[in-house]
Structures are given as structure tokens and as C-alpha cells.
């Protein structure tokens, strides 16, 4: 802030420049410290996953890479850990990817459709429908653990992808975001489409959908991270290894600490981190925009 206006802020230009340089150094120093604090646990895990199990359990806490990277990653990928039921990490990754992608796509599809209905039509019960969707914000899975599990189990959906995914794809946030955006689409566009004889679904496909591309991209990042990182719901709904996700898998690997294969836990942690972190970093621009705008 200060350094943008040196000439005004301080009459003495030389002293001001010196102060500015010092402030810049302090800024860099603290920011680098912050970045390092964030990165430290990841570095430990990344390095640890390249050592053998004995090194880690002896408590050597290596800070530089070892020579066992390939064998550790190959082992977890194809067999998981040796101690328990041995779900390979490749299976867990696949389950997580299926869950995350279906939740993401499901949420986007049903939200954009319901927002379109609420924004572009007038029908009895319109506001009631809108509020019904809105209040689900106040009923996260975490507060209705037991009854929701009962409903899913009554429907025979325990240990199925359907039971894992469908209850999570209602989305008040995404609906609100799309509705907010739809209200800004100019009336002239709708008039023009109507004059050209385009029906509502034609207008949706040719105008609304392309205009929503940025919003969809932003929501994709946020919802993919949300889906991949689910923990409580899969813990309730999945008891069989076939549908185990990687986030659940890691915690199960730790289980009874005494015989935990820590190097494999570390390698699995790295693999579990990779997809959501990659999505956030690669789609950073949309992510930042989407995050800050969704919550408003």
C-alpha cells in the first residue's frame, strides 16, 4: 500500500526508498515463511514415501529423498498395505475419482436446470421451490447423520455408488449462483430469441449454457474438491472394500498404530493429495473467481 505512493507519503525520497526496500524484504521474508510452513508437512510426506518402512518407524524423520520411491509407490498402487484387507490404492483412486466426478457433474446439472426453471418461468409454487432448495443449506449431512443413514439403508443403497453419490448432489449453493447469474442475462436476449421462434430449451442450449461456461468451470473446481474430500458420508455408507475411497482408505491404513506401514501411508497420502491440488492449481483463475463469487 505504502510503496505505491512514495513521493506523497514521505517528502524525503532517499529515506523513503530505503524504508520501502526494507519493508519489501520483511514482506518477502514473512511470505516465504508462510509458504514454507504450508509446504513443510507435504515435504515430509513426499520425502518419507521414498524411504523404506523401517527408516520411518525407527523415527529417523528423513528430510532428503531416499532410494525406495518406485517400490513403495508400485506396492501401494497394486496392493495397498499388507496389514489389512489389501485394497489396492488404484481401486481407491478410481472410487474417489468416480465419486468426485459424478458428484460434480450431478450437482452442476441439477442445479443449472432448477435455477433456469426458477429464473426464466413463472409457475405456482415458484418461490416455495426456491426456498425449499435454499433451506438445505441449513441441513448439512453432518447434522442428520443417523436418520439419513436410515433412509439410505431403507432404500437398500448402502455400499453402492448410488447411495454414496445421489444424497450429496442436491446443491443450494450452485443453484443460488446460477440463479444470480441468470438474473443478469439481458431481457433483450430473451426477446430476440423469442422473436426468432426459439423455445425455452433451445434458448437454454444455445444462449444460457455458453454464457454460463465460466461459472461452470468455477463450480467444477469447488465441487470436485468437495466431492474428492468427502469423509463422513462415505464412512457411513461404505463398509465394503469395493467402494472404499482413498481418503477413507488412508485413515483405515493407520488403524492400530503399532504395525502401521508408515512409508505406504505417506505414499498413499501423496496420491490422495495430487488430483484435487492439481485441479485447484491448474484452474486457479476460475477457482478464485468462483470461490469469492459463490459465497457472496
Amino acid at each position, binding site marked *: 500500500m505504502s510503496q505505491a505512493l512514495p513521493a506523497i507519503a514521505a517528502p524525503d525520497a532517499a529515506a523513503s526508498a530505503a524504508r520501502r526496500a526494507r519493508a519489501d524484504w520483511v514482506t*518477502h521474508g514473512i511470505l516465504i515463511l508462510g509458504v514454507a510452513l504450508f509446504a513443510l508437512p507435504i515435504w515430509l510426506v513426499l520425502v518419507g514415501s521414498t524411504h523404506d518402512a523401517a527408516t520411518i518407524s525407527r523415527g529417523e524423520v528423513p528430510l532428503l529423498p531416499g532410494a525406495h520411491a518406485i517400490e513403495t509407490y508400485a506396492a501401494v498402487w497394486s496392493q495397498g498395505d499388507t496389514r489389512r484387507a489389501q485394497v489396492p490404492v488404484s481401486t481407491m483412486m478410481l472410487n474417489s475419482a468416480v465419486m468426485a466426478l459424478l458428484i460434480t457433474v450431478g450437482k452442476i446439472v441439477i442445479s443449472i436446470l432448477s435455477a433456469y426453471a426458477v429464473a426464466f418461468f413463472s409457475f405456482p409454487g415458484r418461490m416455495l421451490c426456491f426456498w425449499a432448495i435454499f433451506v438445505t443449506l441449513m441441513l448439512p449431512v453432518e447434522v442428520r447423520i443417523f436418520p439419513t443413514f436410515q433412509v439410505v439403508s431403507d432404500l437398500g443403497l448402502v455400499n453402492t455408488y448410488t447411495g454414496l453419490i445421489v444424497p450429496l448432489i442436491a446443491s443450494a449453493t450452485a443453484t443460488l449462483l446460477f440463479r444470480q447469474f*441468470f*438474473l443478469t442475462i439481458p431481457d433483450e436476449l430473451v426477446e430476440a430469441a423469442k422473436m426468432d421462434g426459439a423455445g425455452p430449451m433451445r434458448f437454454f442450449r444455445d444462449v444460457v449454457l455458453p454464457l454460463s461456461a465460466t461459472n461452470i468451470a468455477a463450480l467444477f473446481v469447488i465441487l470436485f474438491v468437495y466431492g474428492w474430500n468427502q469423509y463422513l458420508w462415505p464412512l457411513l455408507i461404505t463398509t465394503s472394500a469395493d467402494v472404499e475411497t482413498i481418503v477413507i482408505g488412508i485413515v483405515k491404513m493407520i488403524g492400530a498404530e503399532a504395525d502401521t506401514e508408515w512409508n505406504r501411508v505417506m505414499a498413499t497420502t501423496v496420491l490422495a493429495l495430487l488430483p484435487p491440488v492439481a485441479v485447484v492449481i491448474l484452474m486457479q483463475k476460475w477457482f478464485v473467481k468462483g470461490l469469492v463469487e459463490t459465497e457472496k
Partner: protein
Amino acid sequence: MRRKVIFPGTALPYLLLAPQLAITVVFFFWPAAEAVWFSFLRQDAFGISTQFVGLENFQDLFADPLYLQVVRNTLVFSVSVTAIAMAVALLLAVLADRHIRGREAYRTLLIWPYAVAPAVAAVLYIFLFHPNIGLLGRALNGMGIAWDYRLNGDQAMLVVVLAAAWKQVSYNFLFFLAGLQSIPRSVLEAAAIDGARPVRRFWTVVFPLLSPTTFFLLVINLTYAFFDTFGIIDALTKGGPANATQTLIYRAYIDGRVNLDLGSSSAQSVVLMVAVMILTLVQFRFIERKVHY
């Protein structure tokens, strides 16, 4: 608010709304209603007979010293997480908002923890604080401090607080940065011309202008600490040692899924619903005010 130009027809909008409404009714309203209904019932030990007991489940809940301890844990945990995550984020955002070289890179390097699952953040913290295999845990023991978060309740609370705060900083950072960038330059220039030093300028001009963002984040962080940290606690401490890190959500999970105590778990769900409703309403009041700013 509504659009002036709309399409005719009523069947199509109902059809478009059907999937969302179906899921909302089956998986949100129905279980929520059940939670409320079950909270007035009590089952015998064998789950054979059920009787209506009015508010007894709630009375029992708030007479239970363990539940009161859990309420206390939740407050300590949530307030600490919120305070740490917001203070660190504000400091980093103010610095990253300065016109220095590499600010884009700093931003990228500071936002990725957002993508880390709470349970995975907890696993990362095991490798920092575990007394035998963790970097800091071993160092602390090496310095003669008896460090073992698996035995010491206060240490356990400290570790779950740090893990939960670590994960939330990047979210707060992005919002503070956006808030800082929306402050008009002219206001800052005026303060600078008046001769206010940077630190004074921050507390008298910048911080008050950030207050909508700060209030918003306050509610969001409390909500996060209340409801989204189940994975952190489950992976790090399982609520232990001696229930020292059990929070309301964790208790509801234990009673509902492990102890299969229908009445108590449902009463706890109702308590949580009230909490989340209050937080959401407060959040929307603040946002409304922000819009009218």
C-alpha cells in the same frame, strides 16, 4: 427479484426442478423430520418397543456431564481454529497485496491447502506431531518436554486445532485478498497524504473497510470448525484421549452410528440443526447488510 421477460408454460419448469426437489425431499427433509420426531422417542435396550418421551432426551442430554464437556470442547476448538486461521490469513493477505515481485507465485503457493481433505490434513499432522515418527513431536521430546498427543488431552486439542486452522487459512486468505483489492485506492491515498504511517493506516482505514469480509469469514470459519472437521478429529485422535477432543459432530456420530442410541443421537441432531440455522441466518443478515453498504 425476478426477470421481466420469461417463458410461458408450467409443466417444463416443474420437470426441470424435479431432480433437485426429489433429492431434497428424500435425503434432506425426510431425514431432518425423522430426526426431530425420533428426538421425542425412546427405544428400550433391545430396540423392540418405542415410546414417546417428550423432551426427556434433551433434558438427559444437557444433564449429561460428558455432553457438556463436548459442548465446551467444541467452543474451545471452534474459537481457536477461527482466531488462528483468520489472523494468519489476514497477515499473509496484507503482505501479498503489496506490490512486490512474485505476488502471483505467492498466491499460488498459499492457496493449495484448500484442496487438501480434512482427514488428509490430519494425516499430514501425524507426521509433524507424532511422538515417535513426527518431526516436531520427536524434537519436543528431545528437548525434555513430555509430548504425546495420544495421552495428553491438551496436546491433542492443540494438534487438532493447528491441523484444522492450517487447512482453513488459504480460504480466508483468498477472501481477505479480494477484500483488500476492492478497497478504493483514493481512500488509501487520502490517508497517506494526511501523513498516516502504514501500520496506523491499516488499523484506522483498511481494517474497518474490511469488516464485511471479516464478519463473513467469522461465520464461515465457525461453521467450518463446527461441521467440516469431523475427518480431522477422526483421523488424528478419534475424539480422545478421554474425550478431550470430542466435538458435537463427533459425539453425534458415536451415539448414532456406534452406540446406536436413536433418541440421544436424534436429539443431538436437532441441537446441531438449531446451531447451523443460527449461523446461516447470521451469515445472511451480514451479507444483506454488505449489499446495502
